[in-house]
């Protein structure tokens, strides 16, 4: 069974630029999550989708972050404009349904200069 796919794996941008990350979940998984993991910390949930609807985006900085999952399968997370403090690993995870075990992708490492 293929795991969660993410791209790109690494990204370096300057502050105030925009960036987008892509995630393809495990086939058949209805729930998709985006997490932010700052060095030395555990992952923090940014947004949760159930199929193509948003379930929880309470910790998403909506003035600069946006995410979509238009067809209920793959998803994109965008940052515009980026700040220095956005430097982190952005992890995508999926689960069969909300509350089930979450499986993570390899992450995208973002460095904002």
């Amino acid at each position: 069974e293929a795991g969660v796919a993410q791209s790109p794996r690494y990204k370096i941008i300057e502050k105030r630029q925009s960036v987008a990350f892509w995630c393809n979940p495990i086939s058949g998984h209805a729930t998709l999550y985006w997490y932010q993991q700052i060095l030395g910390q555990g992952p923090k949930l940014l947004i949760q989708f159930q199929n193509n609807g948003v379930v929880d985006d309470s910790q998403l900085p909506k003035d600069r972050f946006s995410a979509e999952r238009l067809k209920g399968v793959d998803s994109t997370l965008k940052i515009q404009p980026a700040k220095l403090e956005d430097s982190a690993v952005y992890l995508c995870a999926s689960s069969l349904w909300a509350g089930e075990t979450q499986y993570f992708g390899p992450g995208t490492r973002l460095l904002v200069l």
Partner: protein
Amino acid sequence: EDQVTQSPEALRLQEGESSSLNCSYTVSGLRGLFWYRQDPGKGPEFLFTLYSAGEEKEKERLKATLTKKESFLHITAPKPEDSATYLCAVQGSSGNTPLVFGKGTRLSVIA
């Protein structure tokens, strides 16, 4: 607010030296407690889910246990390939609550 505290922050063991990692939590009704392993440059890899106090699960050299306030990850006779960061996370039972992660324990096993 759900909280997870992991200790120690870092642990260095000799190969074969057994030890335990601790995960203390506060949650309004526990739906599940999860253990993940994270290698440098990779995403977290699922290890165990525990649902109720007294439950235990094992996988190779790892054994996870759960009480009403904490979970332990016991590592028996570790090998260098067990070196990683071990993350603990909890999910509350009220509504669609998210996973709350601890900061992790960085384990180094020296040959």
